[in-house]
C-alpha cells in the first residue's frame, strides 16, 4: 500500500469530531422538550454554526455536547468518546454566553488558573501562552485589573482568551460576539480564522449571521428543538436566488406563485423591486428562469444571493406564519 493510500485510509478511520444521534432533552418531567430527536454530525476541522431563533434549543444542545446537561435519550460522541470522558475534556474549550468569571482575580490569574485546569501549566511555553492569549483578545493592557471591573465586552474577550489558553482541539463558543463592539467582532473573526487554519473544530452558536457566513464552513438550522437543515455555507449561497423585476413591473402575486410551484421552489420574499427564491439545488436555477419566462414575468436580472442565512430565518418565519394561518383555517372549518 502506498503512503498516500495509507494516510487516506487512516483519515477515513478517524471518527468525526461530533456525532449526535436521536438526542432528547426535556425539562419538568418531560413537559417541556428542549431537544426532540436531534441528529448532528460535525467533521474534524469544521467551523460549524448552530443557528436558529431564540429558544430553539441551541444552547441546550451545546450544554449536552459539553456533558454539563444530562440527556434523556440519544447518544453523543466527541472524537468517538463520551462527552464527559477526561480525554475529551482535555481537548475541549468552552466560551459561555454569560461570562461571570471569578471576579476577585485579574485576567492573568484567571488565565493561569484555567491553564492549570487544562493541564497546560507545565508546558515550556506556559508563560508565553498567557501573553499570547491576552494579546490575541487585546487585553494585555488591562491584564492586572480585577475582573469585577471589566465591562461585558471585556469579559467576553477574557472568555475567548480562556478558550485559547487550553490549546483546544474542539471549541464550543456560545454567542462569542455578544456585547462586543465592532473591533471586538473583528477580533472574534480573527480568532475563529486562526482556529480554522489550525484545523481546530469549532461549534459556534450565534445570531450574527453575516459573521457566521464569513468564517463558518457548515451550519445547522435548529428550531423548536428539532434539526431542520445541516449543510455547508457554500451550499446555502448557491440555493438563494434574487430575481429583479424589469422596469419596476411587479408581477401578479398569483402568477408568481404559479411559476414557483411549477418548478418546485419556495418564494422567500417579494418586494416591488425583486423576489427571493429558495432552490432545492443549484441545478434548479434554469428551471426557475424557464418558468418565469413561460409565465410572462419580465425580469431584468437574476443572480445567486450571498446573504443566504438571514433569508433562511425569513423562510422559517414565513413557514411558521403559514402554518399558523393553516391551523386557524382548519379550526374555522
Amino acid at each position, binding site marked *: 500500500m502506498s503512503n498516500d493510500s495509507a494516510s487516506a485510509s487512516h483519515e477515513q478511520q478517524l471518527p468525526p469530531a461530533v456525532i449526535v444521534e436521536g438526542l432528547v432533552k426535556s*425539562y419538568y418531567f418531560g413537559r*417541556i422538550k*428542549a431537544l426532540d430527536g436531534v441528529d448532528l454530525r460535525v467533521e474534524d476541522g469544521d467551523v460549524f454554526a448552530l443557528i436558529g431563533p431564540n429558544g430553539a434549543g441551541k*444552547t*441546550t444542545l*451545546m*450544554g449536552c455536547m*459539553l456533558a*454539563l*446537561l*444530562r440527556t434523556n435519550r440519544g447518544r453523543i460522541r466527541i472524537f468517538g468518546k463520551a462527552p464527559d470522558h*477526561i480525554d475529551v*475534556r*482535555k481537548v*475541549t*474549550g*468552552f466560551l*459561555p*454566553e*454569560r*461570562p*461571570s*468569571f*471569578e*471576579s*476577585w*482575580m485579574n485576567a492573568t*490569574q484567571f488565565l493561569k*488558573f*484555567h491553564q*492549570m*485546569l*487544562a*493541564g497546560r*501549566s507545565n508546558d515550556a511555553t506556559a508563560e508565553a501562552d498567557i501573553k499570547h492569549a491576552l494579546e490575541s483578545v487585546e487585553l494585555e493592557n488591562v491584564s492586572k485589573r480585577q475582573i*469585577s471591573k471589566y465591562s461585558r465586552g471585556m469579559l467576553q474577550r477574557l472568555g475567548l482568551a*480562556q478558550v485559547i489558553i*487550553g490549546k483546544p482541539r474542539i471549541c*464550543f463558543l456560545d454567542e462569542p460576539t455578544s456585547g462586543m463592539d465592532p473591533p471586538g467582532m473583528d477580533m472574534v473573526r480573527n480568532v475563529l480564522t486562526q482556529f480554522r487554519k489550525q484545523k481546530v473544530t469549532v461549534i459556534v452558536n450565534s445570531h450574527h449571521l453575516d459573521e457566521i457566513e464569513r468564517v463558518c464552513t457548515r451550519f445547522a438550522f435548529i428550531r423548536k428543538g428539532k434539526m431542520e437543515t445541516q449543510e455547508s455555507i457554500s451550499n446555502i449561497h448557491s440555493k438563494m436566488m434574487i430575481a429583479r423585476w424589469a422596469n419596476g413591473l411587479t408581477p401578479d402575486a398569483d402568477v408568481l406563485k404559479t411559476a414557483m410551484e411549477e418548478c418546485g421552489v419556495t418564494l422567500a420574499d417579494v418586494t416591488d423591486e425583486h423576489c427571493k427564491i429558495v432552490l432545492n439545488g443549484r441545478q434548479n436555477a434554469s428551471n426557475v428562469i424557464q418558468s418565469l419566462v413561460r409565465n410572462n414575468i419580465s425580469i431584468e436580472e437574476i443572480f445567486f444571493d450571498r446573504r443566504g442565512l438571514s433569508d433562511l430565518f425569513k423562510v422559517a418565519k414565513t413557514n411558521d406564519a403559514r402554518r399558523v394561518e393553516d391551523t386557524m383555517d382548519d379550526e374555522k372549518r
Partner: protein
Amino acid sequence: MNKAIFLFTMKRYLHWVNLLVGGVALTISVLLWGLALCVDSAVTKELVRSCLFGPMVAIVVSYTVISPQVANSQRRKDGEYLSLIFSRPISRWSYVVTKWLTGSVFVLAIMALQTTLSLAAAYILSVMWRGHPQNIVDGYAITDAILNAFGVTALVVFIASMPQRIAVFVFILYAYAVLFLTLLVGTASFVSLSLDHVSKTVTAFGQMLYSIFIVGMDSYHVINASDFPVASAVIYLSNIALYLTLATLIMSYREFFYAND
C-alpha cells in the same frame, strides 16, 4: 486532588476582603477567649477548649468558606463558575476531595491562629492583672482539632454540594438534629442513674446517631486507650467517605449550565 483548585481556592480564602472580614471576627473572638483564659476556672477552661477545638468552630469556618464556592455556580458574583470549571479535565470526585482538603487545612489554620492569638492575648491580659493564664493546648486538644477539622469539613462539603436553597434548609435541619441528639443523650445519661436498662439503650442509640451527625472521635479514647479504638476510627473514616461520596453523587447529578435558567 486537583492542584489548580487547591491553590486558587486557598488564594481566594486569603483574599484581602476575606482577611478583613475574618480579621474583625477573629479579633473579637481572640479577646473574648483571652479574657476567659485569665479566669482561673475549670468551667471557662473547658468552654474555651470546646470553642477553639470543638466541632462548632469547624462547622462555622468551613461552612462560611466552602458554601459560596461549592453550592453556587454562575449566579453568585464571588462564586466559582462551575460550568466552566467542569468543562475542563477535572472529575467531580477530584473537585469534592480538593474542596474537602482545602477546607480542612484552612479550618486547621484558623484554629491554630485563633489559639495562638488567644493565648497571647491571655498572657498580655494576665500580665496586666498579675495573674496566670490557663494552658489549654495539649495532645488531646491538637487531636480534637485535627479530627474535627477533617470530619466536620466533609459533612459541610456534602451539605454545600446541594443547590443553595436546599443547602440552607438542610443546614438548619442538621443544627436542630444535633441539638435534639445532644439533649437526648444528655438527658438519657442523667436518667440512667436511676433507670438503667431503658436509658442506656436510648443513650447508645443517641450516641450512634450523634456519631453520624457529628463526624468526630473522642480524642481521650484515641490517646489513652490501651488498644487503638478500631471501631471508632472505622466509623469516623467511613462517615467521611460517605459524605464525600454523597457530595460527589450530588455534584454529578446536578446540571451546571445556564440553558433554561
